[in-house]
């Protein structure tokens, strides 16, 4: 019970720790600008994100934020502007894990970089924003947290200032990001106009009074979906992703495609379940909003997969695969129904966690390849397993796991997503199409994932390479991610429980 002598805002500790770490990094930077003390800077960032992770895990284990337990209820902060429940903690765990992996890997990746301290503080600031999104419970705080995430991300994508690709990617990302922010904010204003409230629960309560403003509200919801689509790299706001991921430094691509996507999803999960409960919303706007997600999910996963299959550039392939995976996770919202949906949403959350390891690992391998000076295409990766068998084995694990082949973590989450969709389809037959799309796309995705495995392991190298260096940080991050991707399979029970409780926190 010692926990409850702490002030209530201490429940936000995982996010606060990250914010503090960012400030400490700023402090280092102001004391010694252009510092190249990589160990100190990376070490601080890693320590901060690990501390945030540890606290989030501790809170989850201690029962903070669990629903339905006496004295351990959901913690409201600032009159419900923030809320710390299972959902928030679950996503804080994902975000801080990915941040830690990225920070460890950046230690080597940034070896010759001028703006070390800026880089780490921006990463940690963005991570702070993501954690705040997970805990935000009002459209205002959500928007602020969203901007806190986006602004450092734009800068991070463009941080290789002398690299045209990086700068161009940063600009594209910024323009589309600004547009989608505007749309999102406009959506917020429409929702506010219709319901007179910004706090999510109040929106839900006021839905019935929206009355004839149903059309306005519907438009507002549609615009909010647009904002979510941008953040999660889903159709129709997906096209920034390949450009940004390709141009950005690879650790940042890993960060954006795993953590930032997770943050976008937690926003969607919370807003649409808490503020717009299906039955009440349908009564007002006349349309079931899950239909939009059904369409988005199918289009997103299909488009992502087909585009990924035609890429010659590894990073772009991973970018499109990341769009495809956003489509899989969207099923979590598409398959919601008035009776149930916590299982399928839980499965989507499990997929995000597994994805946090396998996708981050895959991008970090690309970071390693960039570190070695290996070119960007599949051919350039040919025969890397001869010089670097361990990293290549780890990459094979990521690829097969992303494709959903046993015995890796990706198999479980995809399988559960599939069965829960089929289960939910008993009430809503259109979901069968969704389940079929999931299976077909998964089977298809094996084509381009195995292509990379083939390049690494089976093809002969195009030119002779010297011995490749083995940077400690990158190797440590990649191997850790690979071990987790494998270990998740036998140890899936706690993850499944956590995800299902997280989903139960918002779905009745």
């Amino acid at each position, binding site marked *: 019970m010692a926990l409850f002598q702490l002030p209530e805002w201490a429940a936000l500790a995982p996010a606060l720790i990250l914010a503090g770490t960012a400030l400490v990094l700023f402090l280092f930077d102001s004391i010694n600008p252009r510092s190249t003390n990589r160990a100190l800077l990376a070490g601080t960032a890693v320590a901060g994100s690990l501390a945030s992770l540890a606290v989030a895990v501790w809170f989850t284990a201690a029962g903070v934020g669990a629903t339905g337990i006496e004295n351990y209820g959901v913690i409201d902060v600032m009159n419900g502007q923030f809320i710390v429940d299972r959902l928030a903690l679950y996503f804080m765990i994902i975000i801080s894990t990915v941040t830690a992996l990225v920070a460890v890997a950046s230690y080597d990746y940034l070896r010759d970089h001028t703006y070390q301290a800026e880089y780490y503080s921006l990463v940690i600031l963005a991570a702070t924003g993501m954690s705040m999104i997970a805990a935000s419970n009002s459209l205002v705080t959500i928007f602020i947290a969203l901007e806190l995430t986006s602004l450092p991300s734009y800068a991070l994508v463009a941080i290789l200032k002398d690299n045209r690709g990086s700068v161009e990617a940063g600009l594209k990302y910024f323009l589309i990001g600004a547009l989608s922010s505007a749309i999102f904010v406009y959506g917020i204003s429409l929702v506010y106009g219709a319901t007179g409230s910004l706090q999510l629960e109040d929106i839900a309560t006021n839905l019935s009074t929206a009355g004839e403003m149903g059309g306005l509200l519907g438009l507002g919801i549609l615009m909010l979906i647009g904002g979510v689509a941008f953040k999660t790299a889903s159709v129709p706001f997906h096209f920034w992703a390949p450009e940004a991921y390709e141009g950005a430094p690879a650790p940042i691509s890993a960060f954006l495609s795993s953590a930032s996507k997770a943050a976008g999803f937690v926003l969607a999960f919370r807003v649409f379940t808490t503020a717009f409960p299906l039955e009440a919303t349908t009564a007002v706007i006349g349309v079931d909003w899950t239909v939009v997600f059904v369409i988005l999910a199918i289009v997103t996963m299909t488009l992502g997969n087909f585009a990924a299959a035609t890429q010659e550039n590894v990073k772009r392939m991973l970018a499109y695969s990341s769009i495809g995976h956003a489509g899989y996770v969207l099923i979590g919202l598409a398959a919601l129904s008035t009776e149930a949906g916590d299982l399928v949403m839980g499965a989507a959350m499990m997929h995000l966690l597994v994805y946090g390891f396998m996708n981050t690992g895959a991008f970090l391998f690309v970071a390693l390849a960039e570190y070695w000076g290996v070119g960007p295409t599949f051919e350039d990766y040919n025969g890397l397993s001869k010089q670097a068998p361990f990293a290549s084995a780890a990459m094979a694990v990521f690829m097969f796991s992303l494709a959903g082949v046993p015995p890796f973590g990706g198999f479980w989450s995809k399988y559960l997503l599939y069965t829960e969709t089929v289960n939910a*389809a008993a009430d809503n037959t259109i979901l069968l199409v969704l389940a079929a799309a999931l299976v077909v796309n998964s089977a298809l995705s*094996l084509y381009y994932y195995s292509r990379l495995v083939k390049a690494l392991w089976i093809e002969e190298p195009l030119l002779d390479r010297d011995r490749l260096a083995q940077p400690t940080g990158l190797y440590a991050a990649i191997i850790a991610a690979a071990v987790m991707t494998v270990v998740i399979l036998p140890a899936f029970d706690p993850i499944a429980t956590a995800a299902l409780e997280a989903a139960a926190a918002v779905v009745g």
Partner: protein
Amino acid sequence: MMIEILIAVALVGALVTFVAPNRIAGKLAFAISLVPAALSVWLFAAFDGSGNALLDGELAFESQAAWLEIGDYSISWFVGLDGISLPLVVLTTILCTLAIVSSWTPIDERESQFYGLILFIEANLIGVFSALDFFLWFVFWEAVLIPMYLLIGIWGGPRRKYAAIKFFVYTNVASLVMFGSFVSLVFGLGDSVTSFGLPEIATAMLAGGPEGFFGLSGTTLASLAFIGMFLGFAVKVPVVPFHTWLPDAHVEAPTPASILLAGVLLKMGTYALLRFNFTMFPDQVEAYAVPIAAIAVISVIYGAMLALAQTDLKRIVAYSSVSSMGYVILGLVAYTQFGVGGATFQMVSHGLISGLMFMSVGVIYNATHTRMVTDMSGMADRMPIAVGVLIAGAFGYMGLPLMSGFAAEYFIFFGAFGSELLEYAPLFTSLAMFGIVIVAGYLLFALQRTVFGPYRLETDYEVGRAPVHDVASMIVLLGLIITLGVAPDLIFTMITDAIDPIIQGGGL
């Protein structure tokens, strides 16, 4: 606990071998693989189970631990052996050890990775034969694909890339079809099952079958699931017309991988057919007996004819496997004690004999660097002992009495001829028997041209005596073949003990 130890030794051994230096990897892997081999022989001696694992039998070495619970279904680590699976586990461990020995000569690059993969396959194969929870089983089943894909792709012949990807795509698509069918069947069973435990599902199937799902009636669903699963497993077996991946995979695979592919991997298909289709769906077996028997007979005859047309020794043995697996299907569909028992016996027997044949072809190839029948003759002159064992093995293939092939085929024909379930059983059996004549034809023809006559070789290699370790492992296999031929009751008693409940479940 014993099965866990068996799997763990192979898995840890695989990791250890993977990091060991190339120089010692072969010997190290051999030493490690002796442990599961010895343990499995001990399991064989200490076997105390009775009945069928799925039908209320007394399991040997059973262990079960909860793994995960999602929605209405629980998944567990559930392993155990009965009279059907134990002989296959012993076959696996022994063949893996011998395959490792037979790799010493031909494998001369990236040894530690090669032997690591072989041990990894071994662990998963033991898992396939001992798992009794659908999930666990499927994880092992799919996990066999990846190492085999890499074995063919990295160490294979000139067209290895094509063969590897063909193998992977064929079997993976088949697995998805099977997986989808089985999962929908489990959903169709509704509340009568609460876990993915195979015994529970088998009991529910025999107690009345599925209630229906998505508007399909129970019987329709069961029939669709039966057909879907049959097709899925048929690719793995393989039966005509799904056999085309097999010759490519065999010809391109390095010899040790061929030994495992023909010796054990094909048995996964027939084992799964027996465990799932022929145990859980007695009504469908009866309904579809005639088409299945027709497929079996076509596989026997067509496979043998294809073998007759080949000039590559490895292709001859590969196609003859298609033919031999046809006998297994015929025995299964006969649904009599001798039919199904003989089919199971044939799985073991064919594993030993085809292992021996591939090993001999490998020994000849290592010395001559050609596998073409037309390129050589009189090999008996140079490697008398190895060729002697090869000839003995070939006679085992043809079904010479006192060799295991004779016992297996005799049981199958005896069981099939008198089948009550299969219409026109005598006709099908007589047609299938004709296959033996063709087998004798192509084997004798090939032997006559390659090993007898005056010595002649088209390639520029000196052919000396075969290496001692290769001859030794061939003799071990020959010894096992003769032992089982002289005393089939060594395993046939435990097989029939496990078969009887299946047949009675079918009402015969």
